[in-house]
Structure formats: C-alpha cells, structure tokens
C-alpha cells in the first residue's frame, strides 16, 4: 500500500494545544496544518509554505442552554466531561466508564426517554493526543421530539469503549461497523466481528492513517495520481 495521506491529516504537526479556558465558547485546538497544498520542505514552490492553519473544534459551552437541554444536562452532569452546543445541536462528552449508566438513564428516565439510538459512528482525530478515537451516538426521544448527541473518546493505545447493545439492541451492527472501520473495541458486544470488510481484512480502513489507495492513471501522456496523493488544499 502507498504512503499515508498527504491530505487533511498532516503527519508533521503533532503539537496539540489545550483549549483556552477563558472567554466565551473557546475553541478546542486539536491540530495545526502548515503550508497550503500538503507539501512540506523544499518541494513547495508555491509561496504558500509559510501558512499555518489551526484546526479548532467548537469548545465547551457554559450553561444554561435553555429549555429541555438543561433538563438533560442536569441529569447527565455527573458523567459529563463537557457539553458543546453548536448550531443548535447539543453534544455531551461522556466519560467512557459511565457510558452504560448514562444510556440506561437516558432511555428509562421518563423526563428524558431517549428510546431510539439512531446511529453509532466513529471519528478518528489522529492529532488529539490521548483521545484519538471518538464514538458518536445520536439519540432520539420520540416521546419529547428531541435529539442529543453523545460522544465518548478513547486513546489509540487502549481502544476500548463499553457496548450499549444491552440498552439499545440496534447498536449491534453500528458498533460492528465502527469496530470494522476504526478498531474501537466495544466491550460486552455479543459478537464483535467485521461487518463490511472481509473477516481477514488487515487494518481499519476509515482511520486517518489508513491510505485511501488507488493507482496513478495515465491519460494522453499525462499521469493523474490517486486522489489521496494529489496536490490538495489543506
């Protein structure tokens, strides 16, 4: 397989800056990209090599959030690392050891009643040291017509998150998919096997350190490199 991506994940920039704690809604800086086209060193003759761009995710939002969001936030407060409200959607970062208790509470408590787990997906932030892998749960309360998002992080070195299958049986295939693509091991899952890729497939394809693959294509004398090796804006 080919070299790792030169796209949005810049291997060279590992410096992770902690979120500024003062001010309103400080962003959480998780990475810095340098240059413009993903090229580093003398190869970059574009003149844009000096550019730096910090990758800053929306930071923790202080309460109150208004309306029902406060009800949920209060109930989850003991297990919450931080709460992010962005574009009208609320995200609770839950400590992974508390996840099972939290989802049970969210489903069974009458005031909350999130009876449907829409999806479980994974996101890989290779530069977010100590919390590289995120599992993201979208919950829906049909009773109250509300949606929330839970996010649980785990480090690359210890990719374990408890499985919510016992509370939300629908998470079965979703967790298998997230394991398949990101390598997050959902402890307590009834049969955590690959679901999309063949059972003997090496690697977890949607991690950022897994190359997209592809071969250069020749066309009328020119060669077009595969998408993950083309010059691209980062």
């Amino acid at each position, binding site marked *: 397989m080919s070299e790792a991506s030169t796209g949005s994940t810049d291997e060279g920039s590992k410096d992770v800056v902690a979120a500024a704690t003062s001010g309103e809604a400080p962003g959480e800086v998780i990475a810095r990209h340098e240059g413009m086209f993903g090229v580093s060193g003398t190869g970059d003759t574009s003149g844009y090599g000096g550019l730096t761009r910090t990758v800053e995710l929306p930071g923790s939002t202080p309460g109150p959030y208004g309306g029902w969001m406060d009800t949920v936030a209060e109930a989850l407060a003991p297990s919450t690392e931080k709460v992010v409200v962005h574009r009208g959607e609320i995200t609770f970062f839950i400590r992974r050891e508390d996840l099972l208790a939290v989802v049970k509470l969210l489903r069974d408590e009458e005031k909350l009643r999130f009876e449907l787990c829409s999806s479980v997906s994974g*996101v890989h932030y290779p530069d977010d040291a100590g919390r590289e892998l995120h599992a*993201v749960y979208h919950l829906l309360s049909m009773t109250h017509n509300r949606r929330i998002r839970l996010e649980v992080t785990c480090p690359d070195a210890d990719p374990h998150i408890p499985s919510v299958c016992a509370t939300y049986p629908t998470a079965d295939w979703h967790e298998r998919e997230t394991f398949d693509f990101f390598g997050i091991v959902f402890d307590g899952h009834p049969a955590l096997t690959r679901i999309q890729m063949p059972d003997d497939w*090496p690697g977890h394809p949607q991690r950022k350190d897994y190359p997209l693959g592809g071969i250069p294509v020749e066309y009328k004398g020119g060669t077009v490199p595969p998408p993950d090796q083309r010059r691209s804006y980062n």
Partner: protein
Amino acid sequence: MVSTSSTNETSDPYAATESETTEGKVYTVTGQDWDTIVSGIAEDHDDKVVVNMGPQHPSTHGVLRLILELEGETVTEARCGIGYLHTGIEKNMEFRSWTQGVTFCTRMDYLSPFYNEMTYVLGVERLLDIEDQIPEKAQVMRVLLMELNRISSHLVCIATGGMEIGALTVMTIGFRERELVLDLFELITGLRMNHAFIRPGGVAQDMPAGALDEIRDFVALFKKRLPEYADLCNANPIFKARLEGVGHLDLAGCLALGITGPPLRSTGYPWDLRKMQPYSGYEDYDFEVQTWDTADSYGRFRVRLNEMHESLKIVEQCVERLAGLEGAPVMVADKKIAWPSQLAIGSDGMGNSLDHIKHIMGESMEGLIHHFKLVTEGFRVPAGQAYVPIESPRGELGAHVVSDGGTKPFRAHFRDPSFTNLQATSVMSEGGMVADVIVAIASIDPVMGGVDR
C-alpha cells in the same frame, strides 16, 4: 468476545483479531468455506440444514447473503451477511471537496439518490450556518424531487416484492410507472440516477422549460394508474395470504431495533420526520402521515401504497408553487458558496454556460480567479459536526457530517435506514417458513447500496 492479542510481532498491527467463544465452534463464513460449515454443522445436529441464500440470489434484494438454519421448512435461525457492495464512499468523500461529496453519496442508496444528497447537504448547510438563506425555489424543487423519488422508490419496493412472491404483473406495472418518474428526473436533472443535483446552497440547475407541464401530465396519468395497484393487490386472496401476519414486528421491537419508516408506521405509530421535525419547508405542505395497525408485511405494503398518494399530493402542491416562482434563484446568494454557472446544452450536446465563460474569460480577471478558486479549492466549512436526518422512503436517513474547517469533509457517516432495518431479519423470519423470509425482507425494502455504502 474479541481479544486484541498483539503477540505476533511480524504481522500487521491491524490484522483481524482471533475470535474466542465459550459457546462452541465459531464459523466465520468468510466465503469458500462452505464445506467446513456444512460438515461442522452435520456433526452436531443431524436434523438441521444450513442453507446459504445469496449473495447472488434473485430474491434477496441485491447482494444480500442470508444464512438460514432450517428444520424441515421452518427457519430456526436467520443471519445476514452484508458488505458485498461496500465501496468506501464515506472514506472517498474525505478526499474531495464539500460539493464533490454529493457526487459520491448519491450513489449509496441508488433507489433514493435525492435523499442521500439531501441529508448530506442539510448537514453541510447547518455547519455553514446558511440554513435560512436557501432560496424558496430551491427548497420547493428539493421537495418536488424527493417526493417523486419516494414514488419511484416505493414502486420498486412493491414491484420487486411482488415479483419475489410470483406476482409478476405487479412487477411489470410497477416498473412501467417508475420509468415515467425516471423520465422526469432525466428532464429536470439530466440523469436518471446518481444525479448529484442537490448541492450545498441550493440545487444545480433551474427547472427546464416545459418541465411543469410534463409533471402535470404525469400526475394526471399516475392518478389513474395508482388505483390499479390497489385493485390488483389489496383484496387479492393470494397476495394477502402471502403477506398477512408475515414478518410481524411490533412497536417495542421496532424501537429496540431502531426500525423506522414504513415498518414503524405499520405498527400504527405515526412517526414521520417530515411532520415531526420538518426540514426544507415540509411544514407548508398539506399531507397525512400514513399508518396501518397490523405490524406485518401486508401493513407495510398498504402504508407504502398510501404514501404514494400523499407524495402525489405534495408533488401537485410543489408544481403549483413552482409555477409562481419562475426565474427565482435556485442557489444561495453568497458567491463564496454558490456554484457560478447555470449550464445549458450547447449545439455539441455538452453542458456549458456561454454567458459565464464570456464573463470570466473576457470581462473580469477577478471573476476568473474567483471561479478557479471556488471550482478547484472549494469553500471552507466551519469546524464542528451536524446531523440532520430526513424521512427517506425507508426510514430515518441521516448524515453525521464532521468538519475540521477545511475544504473537504473530515468525516461523513451515513445512518442508512436499510442498514439499521435489516437487523430485524432475524426476529421477523425465525420460526416462520423459508418462503416467508423473502416476504419479510421485501417488506423491510433494504437497498444494498445503502446498507454497504
């Protein structure tokens, strides 16, 4: 349980892990191991037969593989094998611009392409914070295309579902009508499928001349033909005997398994995101949420049939509104997001925009630079994540869109209703007959392009 043993230094660190179990032998069913499985099963249970159905089987709705354990003709265990159509669409989208992403995700659930585009685009628009700036005409066109798409998708469901139980006439007339809908798609978007027509900020093109009349003709014709399905099926004793009571799944089961769409509504619960969490102006249309109370395959068929009537009502309202919106913009006004040109078919049969070319090549250097930047680099989307689900013909379809502030999606994950609903295969078919497995799966209406992505 899965153990992550990393004792083997030479191997790939991500190599498949070994499975351990306390409940007997594990069959991984990776392909070409059928003899092992059959002989293994035969050792333990003499009277049981394991049947592999698919992935190349005409009745399994595409490349779905079913592994059925039978006692006589009764299914004791049913498991799905999926992944045969996995194409890495989500991963590919991370290497293309936000606008190009539409071209990829439209190919997932190929029977409802507009819905795939729509949920992704809504997520991007929420991150861009331009949800209120989308022009009215773009919103109406999106609704129009989605509802036409719901009709064509339900037609395929009913048609193939009929074919699989031997009702071939249902199949032929279903595809006859679907063809008409695809003709409308071709007229409006230029393509019969994989349209990539709904773009962040609006839609790609304005309505072509004469399209509204064509749609009116279609609505008039379809109103005559839609009752044919009811006449053929609703009270047909053979059809009812095959569908009634098959694939039963009640409300509690649906919620536990995350089942949405017609299977959920066939339990009598009127959950429809178009009504409950309206998007794209659905609150302005007059339509009813269709339910049934039998929670079986027949109920799902009736829900779909009735939903086509409702979709037709919405299409009519869209046409009425579009008639008053001639010449209105179909793309957001922000030139940093809006695709610059409106293409027209030239004499060479290729799409081109002569006025725009004249402007950027002859009149404005800045216009050329702007065009170049927008088309090659694309726009940047503020960092964050969004999830805007919509009601697709199969249930809740949502895109979890994550941006790191760059010109490409950092991650796009699709919650496809086919994928989630297919988990109900076991509970719907275990304890029933083999022939009923087909009916139960047809009533879920899975599209493998969406399941595997």
